[in-house]
């Protein structure tokens, strides 16, 4: 476990993901407002912020499911702002969802099969049963085994327990062997025991993987990421190591939503904090 290891140590220094003044507006509401940050290859970044801070919107723009209203996104130096979601996946982006999006009506095996075909031309294969793709089937079994789902392969996705669904969701994303993985609250709604499982799962992720993780659970964050970025009200307000962020009074107030009497948050400060730390840390 590299709980406190600085980002630079794990990363090669190459920038995996760079986001420049990214913004998205929904009918008058700025969900994400001018976020600028970059993540090195192999880095593990947590994103926190109160509900509605724009974290998921941010992810949706990274994955290409939402078009940004401003700004640009680069993956490994390539501008992907206009690329559709599936093309970004081909470039090595994988993600999971806060509200899990596994494929209902399909069994676990079928879910994983869909995923392992996702990046190869075999996904357009028509003339052979998917069961006949030996290599992919093995891959599915391996994946399932590594997530403890090997006994649940023939169960319909909607019949899984919540924890299993979370695992399957991560498993789907990993099936594509992504180089950047976006995880959206993988521990949400899990029991304490299941949360331990998820932590273990995160720790088994391949080290070269760049991970961006939205999470509220500090325990999960502590064990999984090197750094934390804080989003609030669509804006990027702070970034630092887990310990730094935990001690940051401003962040504490924001994230915990606790307002000291009369202590209004000066907006300028937040903005400055964002740009400064965003620019300084990578």
């Amino acid at each position, binding site marked *: 476990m590299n709980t406190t290891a600085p980002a630079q140590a794990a990363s090669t220094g190459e920038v995996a993901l760079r986001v420049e003044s990214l913004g998205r507006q*929904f009918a008058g509401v700025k969900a994400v407002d001018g976020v600028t940050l970059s993540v090195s290859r192999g880095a593990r970044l947590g994103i926190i912020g109160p509900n509605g801070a724009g974290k*998921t919107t941010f992810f949706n723009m990274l994955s290409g499911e939402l078009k940004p209203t401003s700004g640009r996104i680069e993956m490994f130096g390539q501008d992907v702002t206009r690329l559709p979601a599936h093309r970004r996946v081909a470039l090595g982006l994988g993600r999971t*969802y806060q509200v899990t999006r596994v494929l209902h009506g399909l*069994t676990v095996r079928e879910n994983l099969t869909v995923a392992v075909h996702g990046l190869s031309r075999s*996904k357009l294969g028509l003339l052979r049963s*998917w069961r006949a793709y030996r290599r992919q089937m093995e891959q599915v079994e391996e994946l399932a085994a590594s997530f403890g789902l090997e006994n649940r392969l023939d169960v319909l996705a909607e019949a*899984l327990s919540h924890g299993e669904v979370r695992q399957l969701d991560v498993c789907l994303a990993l099936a594509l062997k992504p180089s950047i993985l976006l995880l959206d609250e993988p521990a949400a709604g899990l029991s304490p025991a299941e949360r331990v499982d998820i932590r273990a799962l995160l720790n088994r992720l391949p080290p070269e993987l760049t991970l961006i993780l939205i999470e509220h659970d500090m325990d999960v964050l502590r064990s999984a990421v090197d750094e934390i970025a804080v989003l609030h009200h669509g804006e990027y307000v702070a970034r630092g190591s887990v310990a730094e962020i935990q001690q940051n009074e401003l962040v504490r107030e924001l994230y915990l939503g606790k307002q000291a009497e009369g202590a209004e948050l000066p907006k300028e400060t937040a903005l400055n904090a964002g740009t400064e730390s965003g620019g300084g840390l990578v």
Partner: protein
Amino acid sequence: MNGVHGSADRAQPARRPRLGGRAQSVPLVARPQGPMLWIGAAAFIALTAPLLSQGGFYGGLVTQMLIFAIAAMGLDFLGGFGGLVSFGQASYLGLGAYGVAVSMRYGYGPWTAVGISLVVILLVALIVGPLAVRVSGIGFVIMTLALGQILFGLAFSWVGVSGGDNGLPILSAPVLGPIDLNKPSHMSFAVLAVFILSAWLLRTFVTSPFGLSLRGMMSNEQRLRTLGYATRLHRYVAYVISVFFGGLAGILFAFSNGLISPTAMDFHHNGVITIMAVLGGLGTLWGPVLGAVIIILFQQYLSIYVDRWATAMGVVFIAIMLFVPEGVWGLARKGARRLGRQLGRPAADGATTRALSAEAREPHRDGQNDGSGDEAEVRA
């Protein structure tokens, strides 16, 4: 506590598999199993072959059933497995038939006409497809209906080519060695052969990685995109495949009827093929075959004896929609499952259903909608 029982009842429909429209429409199990297919196919041939060889009305009736079954199965490929229920399958049936008829009118032989027709079907599907798959759900219904009306209008009013209202005759059918499709019995068996081939192909497609991802897409298109799928391309390919079988049925229709006229592709006929697929059961592939059998019986058999057969057909269909939205095949399967349970054996759908019923009782949670910033933002 008065409300509790009522609410428990209300909870039921949510679990009922539904038609079309994405996630809600997933059939719990949509996998025809291997051995059954072969037994089924053998039984099917055993049943239909005597009728076909007998020729005449019953031979003709079964031939019609098979032809429409091909079109309806094609519709099911997109509707039942891809969630896009088309109202334009009869338009492609007409297109296929006109492809043959027009080619032959311009002097091409039957085989060439078949080739030209196949190309035309594919071309039209490739051109129209992007328009049609731009929308989903009800939008797709309306769009295919409108596009179908265009094709109908074309056939009706482009008289110089299509022969207009009177249609075009198809005076000779392909001959291949000893097989002479001008003979009704040969034609019938050719239709049976194409039917079996189509059924086999479609079943293969359904169980292929492509078919699997199509089902996944029906469940959650967005997820498929983030798994690397260009979903619109997928829908497009599925659309082309689906309507291709409509066109194929049309080619057979042309030769077995000897005439094609615009009526075959009007609003009612488009509706009828959709009804076949839905009545039989979307997402089952065999259901539409059953649907075709039932509807053709109404249209071509009952109509000889019963004046108000159309009303009867409509009422039966409405009743199915109200009480068995999963269709007749779905009902039969449900019955089989119940029978299985009564016999104390594992449920007919094996592991998956067993798991389902067991799991539903076990406590587990789902975070859907709960504290979902995602949902809120999308809505805003």
